C-alpha cells in the first residue's frame, strides 16, 4: 500500500463521489492514485505525474474526455500511457468515439470497483508484456482478482 513502485492510476472523473470511491478502491487494491476533476486538470496531472494508466470519464466539464484523450495521444511524452475510457452513455457512438479519440479500452458505467480494477489490471499486464525490459522497468506484482 502506498508503495511508490506501485502503478500510478490517474482517475479523471467530475462526479466527486464516484471519483473518490474509485480512488479508495484502487488504493485498497494496491495502486497509487491521482485524481483530476476535468480534462484540463487531467492534462496537467498527466504531464506532472506521468501516471501508468489513466481512467478517463468522457463527460467532463471545461474539457471533455475525448479532447483530453486526443491531446494526450498527440503528445509524444504521454502517448504511451494507456487510457481506459469510462462512459455512462452506452448509446451508439460513444464507444466508437472513445476509440477514435485514442482510448485503449473503455468500461461502461455503472462499473463496480472490482470490475474496474480487473480492467486496469488487464491493461497494465498487457502493456507490461509489450514493453518488457523497458527503461522504466516498473514492475507491479500482479494482483489477481477473483471474478
Amino acid at each position: 500500500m502506498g508503495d511508490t513502485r506501485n502503478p500510478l492510476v490517474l482517475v479523471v472523473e467530475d462526479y466527486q463521489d464516484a471519483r473518490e470511491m474509485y480512488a479508495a478502491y484502487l488504493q485498497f487494491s494496491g495502486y497509487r492514485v491521482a485524481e483530476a476533476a476535468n480534462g484540463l486538470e487531467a492534462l496537467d496531472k498527466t504531464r506532472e505525474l506521468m501516471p501508468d494508466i489513466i481512467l478517463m470519464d468522457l463527460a467532463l466539464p471545461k474539457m471533455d474526455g475525448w479532447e483530453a484523450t486526443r491531446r494526450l495521444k498527440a503528445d509524444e511524452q504521454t502517448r504511451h500511457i494507456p487510457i481506459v475510457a469510462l462512459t455512462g452513455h452506452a448509446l451508439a457512438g460513444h464507444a466508437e468515439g472513445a476509440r477514435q479519440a485514442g482510448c485503449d479500452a473503455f468500461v461502461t458505467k455503472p462499473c463496480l470497483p472490482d470490475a474496474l480494477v480487473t480492467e486496469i489490471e488487464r491493461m497494465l499486464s498487457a502493456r507490461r508484456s509489450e514493453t518488457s525490459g523497458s527503461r522504466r522497468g516498473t514492475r507491479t506484482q500482479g494482483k489477481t482478482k477473483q471474478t
Partner: protein
Amino acid sequence: MSVVTNTPLLSSAGVHSPEARLALAEALLAATDLQSFARQALDWLAYHAGVDQTLVAVADPASPNLLLIADHGIPSQVLADFVIRRDEATHPIVRAMDRAEGTYFAAAASRETPLAGIGFHAFPLRQDGDAASLGLLIAVASSPEVHPDVLWVARQLSRQPGRLMARPGLAESGFGQERMLLYSIINAVTDPILLTDTEGKLIIANTHAEKLFAAPEDASEGWRRAVALNNMLFSAALSTSAVTQTDLARRELLLVDPLEGSDLLFELLSSRAKDERQGTYVVSILRNITDLARAREEIEESYRTLRLAQAEVRDERHRLDLIIDSVADPILVTDPEGDIVLMNEPAERLFNVPVTASEAAQRNVRANGANLTSFVSNVLTRTGEQRYRGEIQLTDPSSGRALPVEALAGTILSEQGELVWVVTILHDLTEALEKEVLYERLKHASAELERKVQEATAELAQQNELLRRQHIELEQASALKSQFLANISHEFRTPLNAILGYTHMLLHGVTGAISEPQRKSLTRIDSNSRHLLALINDILDITRIEAGRMPLNLTRFRVTDLVDEVMSELEPIIRRSNLAVTTKTRSLPMVKTDRQKVKQVVLNLLSNALKFTPSGSVTIATTVDGKAGMVGIIVRDTGVGIPEESQSKIFEDFRQLDNSPTRGYGGTGLGLSICRRLAQMLGGSIELTSRLGEGSVFTLRLPVRPRRR
C-alpha cells in the same frame, strides 16, 4: 320548140314471125272497141318486139283533149300529165300527130312533152288517104331507129280507129277523161294501189305503188333487188291469199322500202274486179301499218306495264296493311272532319270497343275519340305544316288506366293541295314518363351519393392530415421520450454507480470489518441496486432498439459454440438448480449475425427456463431449415408453463404472469420483450408453445445470413 326529126325507117321487116303478126291482126280484127284493140296491140309489141313502153292516144271528137286509151309500161306520172289539147297546133305532140311520118323526140328534145326527158317515137295514126290524124302511137326509144314491128303496129292501129271510133257510144264517151281523172285520183291516194291480173301481173299502179314495185333504169342494185323482192312477196301474197275465194281479202304483207331498206308492214286489201270485157282483175290496196304495228306494240307494252304496276300497287297495299297492323303503336287516318277512316289493330283497342263492352269502356272510348278529334282539329288549323306533334291524355278502355301518349300527325294533301287525310301515330309515353321519374330519382340519388362521397373524402383527407400531424408529433414525442429515457437512465446510473461502488467496498471490508447484521443489510442494498441497474439497462436497451440506435455488429460464428458458451456462463445457476440440463445440438451451418445479441437472447431464454422450472429438465436443441435459410435454437423446459390466453402477453413490456408485488420470481419483466425485439432486429423471430403445468418451448429462429429488410 322541140327539135323534131324524121324517123328513119328500117327496112328490116320480116325479122318477126309472120305468125305472130297474123295472130295480132286476127285479134285486132276481133276487137270490138278501140281500147282493147290498142291494149292488145301494145301488149303484143311488148311481148314480141320488146318495146315495152308505149301508149296510144286518140283524138276524140267529144273532147278537146287527146284521150289516152292504152298504155304499157309508161310511168303513171307521165300518164297523169298527158293532157294535150287537140287544137293546140303548136304542141310538139299535136304537130307530130299531124305529120305524115313518125317523129323521133330525142331525150333532150322531149322537154315540152309529157314525156320530158325521155326519148320516144311518135307515129300518127291515120287511115290511108286521110288528111286528119286520128291519134298517135308513142313508143319510148333511146335512139331514132324504129323497130319494124312498131311501124307495123302503128299501121295496124291506123286502120282501125276509124272503124272502132265509129261505133256508137264510144266516140261520145268521156272515157279518156275519166281515165285521166281516175289516174289523178289513184295517184292522189297515199296508199299504194295496184291493179293486177289474178297472177299478180301488174296492170296499173299508182305512184306510191310504183315506188315499191318498180325501179327506174338508173336505180341501184339494192333498189332493184328490193323491188324484185317486193314483187315476189306481193305475187306470193296474192297467189296464196283467199282472193280467189272471197271478194275481199285482208292480210298483212311485209315489204321492203327500196330506198330506205327498212321493213314496211302493209295491210293488203285485195278484191276482185270482174269486167265483162276484160276478165278478172285484182285490185290491191296496201296500207302502211308499220307505225300502227309499232303503236300497237307500244300500247300492248304500256298495257302490260300498267297491269304490272297495278299488281305491284295491290301487293304494296297488302304489304302496307301488314306493316301498319304490325306496328305496335296505334295508327289512325282521319278525314278533315275528324272521322276515323282507317286504323290499325292497336288503335282499335283504344278507339273502338264492341258494343258489348262495359259502360266505363264505352265512355273511355268516347273520351279518347274526343281527345283525338281535338288534336286533329289542332292539326287542321296549322296549315302549311306537314308534321304536328302533341301529347294527348288517353285512357285504356279495358283497364281504365291513364295513358299519356305522344301524337305525331302528318297531313296528306291531294294533288290540288286540299287536305285529304290526317295520319296520326300515337306513342305510349307511360314507360317514358316512368323512366323519366326513375331517372330523376336516380340522378338525385347519384347526386346525393356524390355529395356524400365528397364529404367523406374531404373528411378523410382532413383526418389523414390530422393523422399525419399526429404521426409527426408522435414521432417527435417518441424521439423525445427515447432521448429522455436515455438521459434519465444515464443520470440514474451515476448515483447508482456510487451506491453500488460503496456498498461493494463496504462488503469487501475496504473501510474496515463489518458486523453480520450490517453485511446482511448491505447485501440487501447491493441486490436491490443491482436490480435497479438491470431495470435501467433493460429500459435503455428497449429505448435504443425503438430509437433505431442499437448498432448491429455482424460476425460469422457457430451456433453450437454460442450455446456452449451460454451453458458455461450459466453453469453456477445450473448447478444450483438441480435440473437435468442438456444440449442436443447438431452440426449447423455457420451463421452471420450479431453474436452478442443472439447470446443475450439465448441467455435470457435459458435463464427463464431455469427460473420457471422447479423440477424436471431443461433442454437446448438446434434445428436447421436449409430451404428457408434459417436456424433454430430451441429451449424446452418442464416448468410451470404458460396458459394459452397469456402466451401473447408475455412478450409485452413489464410482463410476468404474476404481476403482483409479491411475485415469486425476480427479473425486470422486460427480458422477453427485449428478446423478441432483438430477434426481429436480426430478421428472426421467437415462438412459444406451452401448456400450463407441463412446460414451455421457446424457439429462436434466425436467418443464416442477414437479410435486407
